[in-house]
């Protein structure tokens, strides 16, 4: 399954894709740091909204496409919120990767990550931060980075994904 987490609506998609996009009628709640997704309802966020199953969705995807405005060298608040609500994808147990502590995988899949960032006046330092963050995300999620592309506009992303 291909999972697309995007703050841009109306992206071109294929049959079978799962799109996670902002819903103007349903608020996304932010992670409250309770770790309920590890110790109360393992594998699922305890906050009941459209984003409570993110860990399970990530556990059953092989391709993850992230589409986000570049905000201070990272994701937009919406995309970051979805990722913050996704930690049930990983196990609370620790392991060591690249000589640093990380969480063990809960699932056996390997995710291929592609990221598309858009915005005007994205600085070189912001781009460098983006690259570092996606690399760190990939280590934490035991994922592989397929590519990171910067775009000047949303239309450019729609064209790239068509």
């Amino acid at each position, binding site marked *: 399954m291909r999972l697309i987490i995007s703050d841009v609506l109306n992206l071109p998609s294929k049959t079978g894709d799962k799109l996670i996009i902002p819903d103007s009628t349903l608020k996304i709640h*932010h*992670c*409250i*740091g309770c*770790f309920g997704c*590890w*110790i*109360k309802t*393992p*594998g*699922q966020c305890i906050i009941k909204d459209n984003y409570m*199953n993110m*860990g*399970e969705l990530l*556990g059953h995807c092989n391709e993850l496409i992230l589409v986000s405005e570049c*905000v*201070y*060298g*990272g*994701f*937009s*608040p*919406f995309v*970051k*919120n979805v*990722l*913050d609500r*996704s*930690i049930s994808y990983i*196990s*609370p*147990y*620790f392991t060591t990767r690249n000589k*640093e*502590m*990380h969480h*063990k995988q*809960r*699932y056996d899949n390997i995710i291929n990550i592609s990221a598309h960032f858009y915005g005007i006046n994205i*600085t070189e*330092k*912001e781009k*460098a*931060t983006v690259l*570092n*963050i996606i690399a*760190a*995300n990939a280590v*934490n999620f035991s994922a592989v980075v397929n590519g990171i592309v910067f775009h000047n506009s949303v239309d450019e992303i729609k064209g790239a994904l068509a």
Partner: protein
Amino acid sequence: MNIALINASPKKAESASGILLDGLKGLFPTDCDTKIFGIHDPSMPETAIEELQRFDAWVFAFPLYVDAVPSHLLSAMRQIESNKAVDKDICVYAVVNLGFYDGQQARNALAVMENWCVKSRLKWGGGIGFGGGGALASMKNVPLGRGPKTSLGKVFSAFSEVILSSSSQENIYASIGLPKFLYKLVAEMGWRHMIKVHGGNKRDLNKKL
């Protein structure tokens, strides 16, 4: 000197960020005007942003979330950036606490904070990445600078001087004063204990859906 200590944990109480700010606050002289603010939600009251204007320094404390800044804080940062009245002479500092042991893993969150300062035309004063923050809640009675908080006391002592002089520092990284293997062992025992407390089984810590 006026210093705003901004607790940006999503938890309104009992947070490691709050413990860290309390520890830092204790290092400032008594004639230093400090006030603790909270950013626990994505939206900040405009009155709070206006009140922040009277402070010379802003010290953010927050947990590392998925290698960067928690989304609710990111929303608040955008709100502050869009507030045209923000005094550009304010110096911004940050303390990031991690559940991971190695403080260096806060480097990207601190880079985001620095990038935000550039966009908002605020002065970036540098930050601290503190690994093993998950243990702080169980060490409330341990004084700063003692036992497992020895390294924290050292970096906070230097950090408080930097803040008081309105100067900047390179980011500093430190960890809780426990061996890494012991921190991991205790943390994982904690997960097994907590899932049992909530009626679950330790095998469910790795449950797949």
